[in-house]
């Protein structure tokens, strides 16, 4: 168990954390025909939208209830109603996911109550599913907002249902990319099982070109499928943050299996074991081969990862997935995370700082770290400390294809190990005499002045 360190300081420098409503919005975008709606002032939405646009390189249909001075004082119920009306007129979504922001939560607004009352009154909204999750900016981060949104969806839309043989629920965590979700879904299907994925960003935020223009999400979990989740034979939740959602489905009679991570040999082994039991099927040859290839990749990569000092800044579930994989390869971690969750405590290192990139920069320098693993905002720190920077998490705005990076399953783990080892190799250490305290060879022997030292 890692000891969680909460730095005693008032100033946060270079935030690592991303807000909870943004996480909720991202989860909502994994529903088919969806528009996420922030209940708050319009700036909240603008920043979140720009963030997601920069990361996914997609138009993000994020909307706002645009709280103004009056509604901030008197209450924003009417703003929600008006927003839904306008959104329906313009984009005709099947699903509107509302995420509250700090403003309305600070007011203490009973959004859920008002929403219930309003939907009862507005029968004309009946063909749009409206879901509300409380995601104040001041509690938790992206991971928590995402999880709260999934819980809210299950609360609102999953109902008791007759048993559907071979159907399993997959609840991917916010730390998974579109490619990660696709990889896991493929693994489940390879055992002859049929996953209902909630949310499914592999269909909506995977970076594909659609045939028409849509004002809502480009794909994702179908609402009719969500309604059947209560009939699945099991729920497979990926990430500690998804445990409460899995428990909500367990209340409908679906056995919950929570996997802290699907990165790393042992982690995937545990998942495959479960799939074997659930399906009773033979392990497909492709899966066996992928495991053998990962084993070999571990051998090749351990020369570069063994003993490597890695500075990692990530939300708890991502930190646990990647951190445990690297530690299992002999890396030593210096870790900063965003919230003190159960996953954060299980990151394999002595201490985990619940802090920001400023904390990470100080700790990385003090610890002599040689590689940085964090989202794009770490790039300036990497420059200052002359470290290779492997990007992971959200946002990644200075690279293309963030949604395509797969670090999940046997194959994704293999790719991740290569990615880390290659980052190390791309910053070769060229020894110099002074590294060992040796004096320079007498310049009288030199034919030409030596080139400048490149460390």
């Amino acid at each position, binding site marked *: 168990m890692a000891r969680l360190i909460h730095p005693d300081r008032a100033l946060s420098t270079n935030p690592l954390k991303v807000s909870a409503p943004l996480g909720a919005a991202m989860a909502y975008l994994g529903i088919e025909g969806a528009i996420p709606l922030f209940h708050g002032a319009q700036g909240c939405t603008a920043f979140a939208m720009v963030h997601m646009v920069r990361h996914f390189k997609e138009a993000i249909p994020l909307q706002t209830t645009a709280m103004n001075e009056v509604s901030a004082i008197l209450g924003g119920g009417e703003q929600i109603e008006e927003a839904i009306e306008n959104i329906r007129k313009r984009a005709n979504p099947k699903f509107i996911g509302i995420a509250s922001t700090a403003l309305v939560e600070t007011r203490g607004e009973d959004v859920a109550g008002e929403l219930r009352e309003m939907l009862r009154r507005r029968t004309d909204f009946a063909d749009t599913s409206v879901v509300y999750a409380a995601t104040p900016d001041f509690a938790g981060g992206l991971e928590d907002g995402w999880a709260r949104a999934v819980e809210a969806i299950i609360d609102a839309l999953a109902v008791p249902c007759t048993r559907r043989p071979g159907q399993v629920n997959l609840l991917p965590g916010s730390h998974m990319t579109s490619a990660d979700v696709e990889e896991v879904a493929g693994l489940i299907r390879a055992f002859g099982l049929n996953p209902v994925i909630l949310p499914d960003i592999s269909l909506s935020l995977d970076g594909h070109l659609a045939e028409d223009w849509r004002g809502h999400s480009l794909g994702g979990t179908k609402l009719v499928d969500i309604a059947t989740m209560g009939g699945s034979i099991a729920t497979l939740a990926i990430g500690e943050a998804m445990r409460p959602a899995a428990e909500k489905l367990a209340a409908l009679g679906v056995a919950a299996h929570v*996997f802290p991570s699907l990165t790393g*040999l*042992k982690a995937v082994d*545990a998942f495959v074991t479960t799939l074997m039991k659930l399906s009773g099927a033979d392990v497909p040859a492709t899966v066996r081969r992928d495991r053998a290839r990962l084993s070999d990749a571990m051998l*090749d990569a*351990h020369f570069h990862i063994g003993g490597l000092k890695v500075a990692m800044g990530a939300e708890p579930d991502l930190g646990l997935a990647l951190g445990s994989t690297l530690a299992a390869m002999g890396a030593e971690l210096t870790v900063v995370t965003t919230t003190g969750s159960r996953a954060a405590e299980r990151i394999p290192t002595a201490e985990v700082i619940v802090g920001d990139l400023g904390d990470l920069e100080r700790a990385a320098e003090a610890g002599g770290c040689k590689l940085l693993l964090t989202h794009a905002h770490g790039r300036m720190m990497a420059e200052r400390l002359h470290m290779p920077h492997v990007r992971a998490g959200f946002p990644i705005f200075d690279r293309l294809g963030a949604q395509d990076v797969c670090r999940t399953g046997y194959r994704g783990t293999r790719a991740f190990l290569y990615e880390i080892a290659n980052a190390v190799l791309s910053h070769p250490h060229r020894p110099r*005499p002074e590294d*060992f305290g040796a004096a320079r060879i*007498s310049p*009288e022997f030199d034919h030409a002045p030596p080139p400048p030292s490149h460390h």
Partner: protein
Amino acid sequence: MSEALKQKIQTAFVEPGCATNVAKSESERKKGCAKQLTPGAAAGGCAFDGAMIALQPITDVAHLVHAPLACWGNGWDNRGSASSGSELYRKGFTTDLSELDIVMGNGEKKLFRAIREVIAQESPAAVFVYSTCVTALIGDDIGAVCKAAAERFGRPVIPVNVPGYVGSKNLGNKLGVDALVEHVVGTMEPATVTPLDVNIIGDFNLSGELWQVKPLLDRLGIRILGSISGDARYAQVAMMHRARVTMLVCSHAFMAIARKLEERHGIPWFEGSFYGISDTSAALRTMCRLLVERGAPADLLDRCDALIAEEEARTRAELAPLRPKVEGRRVLLYTGGHKTWSVVSALQELGVEVVGTSMRKATDGDRERVTDIMGTDAHMYENMAPKEMYKMLREARADVLMSGGRSQFVALKARVPWIDVNQEKHEPYAGYVGMVELVRAIDRAVNNPMWADLRSPAPWEMSACDATDEPFVLSAVPGSKADFEDC
């Protein structure tokens, strides 16, 4: 093969400085030092390769290979000799002979043009021109071309006549160094000489190993005047004849140049190694003793003893905390020459068991050393077939293999840790600090938690009662002792 080259090879096989060689019969000696190659069972480099190993680390020289593409196109940029100065030696220069060049006999002309271009492009301290199988076969006279080019361009252009087919890597070492004796040594004079000037021959400064030792020499005021070939400048080869003592770093192949320096310039030489604690100390002592015999201030010996005492104490203190991490581990050494014994004693001191050491390329002297150190010759073996080695490692009769890159995958595929101790390695292990690094490398290799995961059965190999769908357990906390022997 030209008469001259034949002659040269025959002389290379006579080495009065080498006890092994002297003890041989006339006919045995003619066969050379290396074992004759067996078609169908031969592996390893050729004479050209050997010459390149010996000379290419000379840093400010343009190494130009007169050959079709394969010789250097496939060979350059594969070794880690570090330079503190020029980076020129890391560029790959070749005449890249085409079919037309060969058929039309354009080889010499192309070589001359290539020399002109490389001088214009890089302004090297010198150009070393290597002949190879094809260019020797078609009769290109690189000696004549080099001579003409040197006169024309006013720059040393040194022919290195080493077609691959003449023999092994070992022979190539000799021929390469021979070219230096013939064309370079003694051609320049140092600005100043001191009684503490030495030559170091046969250290390649792999990953900076020479610099792990150099601070010791710096502290004693000893200057490396002449060098072949780690971090060496051309001038240092040219000035070798003014040093007071030559240290030959564990290479019988380079003995000829040390002997010739003694014969022609009266410079005494000794063989020594910077691998392992006791060898490093012995090398320093011998060097200082010989320097004092040649007129260096007598207090050098006391200063040397004080330095050794201090360094050895510090090294042992640094090794102590590593001992529990490596103690009881069983190492299989698969390397050649001096490395068969030079690190053994230091490892044994740390409680590491050396379960075997190969005697490839080892001399009788090496054998004796091994027997001395290990108390028995039971652990010596000759070549080991990969299949046999795989079996041995798979049966876990050793915990770690220390070898060169070629047997790397025998170990890894047997799921056994491997440490590179050959010329391609990326970690420096010389001198006192290098010993600590080597033990750290062993710790890092054998205690990597990855092995436990790797050796665990796949989910489909587990019996139903073993299999658990409990989410995985985080056993891999850094610093914890991974116990892969439990698997």
